[in-house]
């Protein structure tokens, strides 16, 4: 069975290459995790520009692979299998990673696995906290995703319970940051400002929490608009904007809805473990509130360290290792990336 697995990630603005070792007991060990980010090139546009990201992936791909092997002290010929993000993500960005992965697999004569980026965000937690329980719940929150997933088998069986009907949580952070005159990406500066603010200062709305709303879906568009309205009316009154309080109250609304729905889903599905992953998982209020509410509900909370939560190659290598261990079929070299790959398809 393949032992050293390389993971390649290029679905958004990070070119990631990870190397892991699959042990006999099916545990997975992280050997290298190299990322080249084009985030700075997108900052002035206030969001990821697909063509800019694609160009950066092509430029960074081989150097990032080289760095990962240097870090791990391995040679390319040591790799036994390759996993690559097949989707979901930006079409042009995915294509660069998929083309590179196919070429490496062909040249090295080793199997290739096209895997699901969302499942990778969950699988990455096994690098830090060991194997997942039989069944668990995953909350993915980032600039691109907001999803509640039921995970019966990380290599093959994932069900979506709910997702955002409009903006991803991270997108709402970017937009609110803009309203408050904070830099892009909005997550870290809002988190920082919120630490000095009062989360109860302003009662921003909790989207999709009415009795007739879908139980596990999210909406952040209304919240974002409510923040903008609040700021604009304060500006009209000639008041100084209490940036810290607005940030804290916005962040409280996001964390409240996310954790409330996650706990509700865990209870309803009889699951006692919650994994929170994705770029927004590093948010201090979200992890704090999740820890509090999970403790109350008797749920084990697993949050990978921040570096593993954001997009990287290690998550794809980790998922690849689980797919290999489960003896799932490998991909054919003519597969195409799927920008809308549904989460149920863990590997193609």
């Amino acid at each position: 069975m393949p032992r050293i697995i390389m993971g390649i990630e290029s679905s958004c603005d990070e070119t990631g290459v990870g190397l892991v070792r699959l042990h006999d007991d099916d545990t997975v060990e992280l050997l290298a995790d190299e990322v080249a980010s084009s985030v700075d090139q997108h900052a002035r546009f206030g969001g990821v520009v697909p063509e800019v990201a694609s160009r950066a992936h092509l430029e960074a791909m081989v150097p990032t692979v080289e760095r990962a092997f240097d870090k791990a002290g391995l040679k390319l010929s040591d790799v036994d299998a390759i996993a690559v993000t097949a989707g979901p993500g930006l079409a042009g960005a995915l294509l660069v990673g998929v083309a590179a992965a196919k070429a490496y697999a062909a040249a090295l004569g080793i199997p290739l696995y096209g895997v699901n980026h969302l499942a990778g965000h969950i699988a990455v937690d096994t690098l830090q906290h060991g194997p997942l329980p039989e069944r668990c719940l995953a909350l993915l929150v980032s600039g691109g995703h907001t999803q509640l997933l039921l995970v019966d088998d990380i290599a093959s069986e994932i069900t979506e319970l709910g997702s955002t009907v409009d903006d991803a949580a991270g997108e709402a952070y970017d937009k609110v940051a803009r309203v408050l005159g904070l830099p892009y990406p909005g997550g870290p500066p809002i988190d920082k400002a919120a630490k000095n603010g009062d989360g109860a200062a302003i009662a921003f709305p909790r989207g999709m929490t009415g009795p007739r709303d879908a139980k596990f879906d999210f909406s952040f568009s209304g919240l974002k608009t409510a923040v903008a309205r609040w700021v604009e009316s304060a500006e009209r009154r000639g008041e100084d904007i209490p940036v810290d309080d607005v940030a804290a109250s916005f962040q409280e609304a996001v964390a409240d809805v996310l954790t409330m729905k996650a706990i509700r889903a865990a209870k309803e599905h009889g699951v006692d473990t919650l994994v929170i992953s994705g770029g927004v998982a590093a948010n201090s209020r979200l992890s704090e509130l999740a820890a509090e509410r999970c403790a109350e509900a008797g749920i084990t909370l697993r949050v990978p360290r921040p570096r593993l939560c954001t997009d990287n190659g290690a998550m794809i290598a980790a998922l690849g290792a689980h797919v290999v261990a489960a003896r799932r079929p490998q991909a054919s070299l003519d597969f195409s990336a799927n920008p809308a790959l549904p989460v149920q398809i863990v590997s193609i």
Partner: protein
Amino acid sequence: MLVLAIDTSTPAVTAGLVALDGDALESRGDRVTVDPRAHGELITPHALEAVKAAGVTLRDLDAIVCGVGPGPFTGLRAGMATAASLAHALGIPAYPVCSLDAIAADVAPGEAPFLVLTDARRREVYWAAYAADGARTDGPNVERPGDLKTTIKVAAGDGALLYADALGVQPIEPRFPSPIGLVKAARKDFGEEPAPLTPLYLRRPDAVEPAARKKVTTS
């Protein structure tokens, strides 16, 4: 010397094996599919089929030549990411070559200057001009066919066929870069340290910086 040539700068997904013996070039088998949306799917399988048809393996290659455009970006990157990764994994050099030069290298020797034009989409063409001896004299550029100022009357490349009337040119063969053409255009660099594989985009990414924040409240 055995060279794998790759080009995805046009609707043709092209991979082929070329053997060099001194000045002699010999095609050892091509795999070409004309499908503007299949570059990412087909380029690696085509490369594998081409080496298999030649009775060798990727490990027998001495170098790779890759067309670096200009061409529609997404398809172009599929071939370039493939070439760069193959070269890295095999430990062999990858030589970049302007894809228009590769088409020009296949134009039958004549007595007149000629153009090479390929489809840049958005009603524009990528183009370059060549002297009768095949040396590039202008370009590569991207322009609307109507804005192209030239007195040259013959043109190769699929852009010449698409816009023959608008340009008033007589289309000549070939339409797409061939493995032999790619190797011919790149061979002067063989033995040297290859230049970086950098795409000839010729256009900036479409992206506009956001204007001042729009108010959500009116009044």
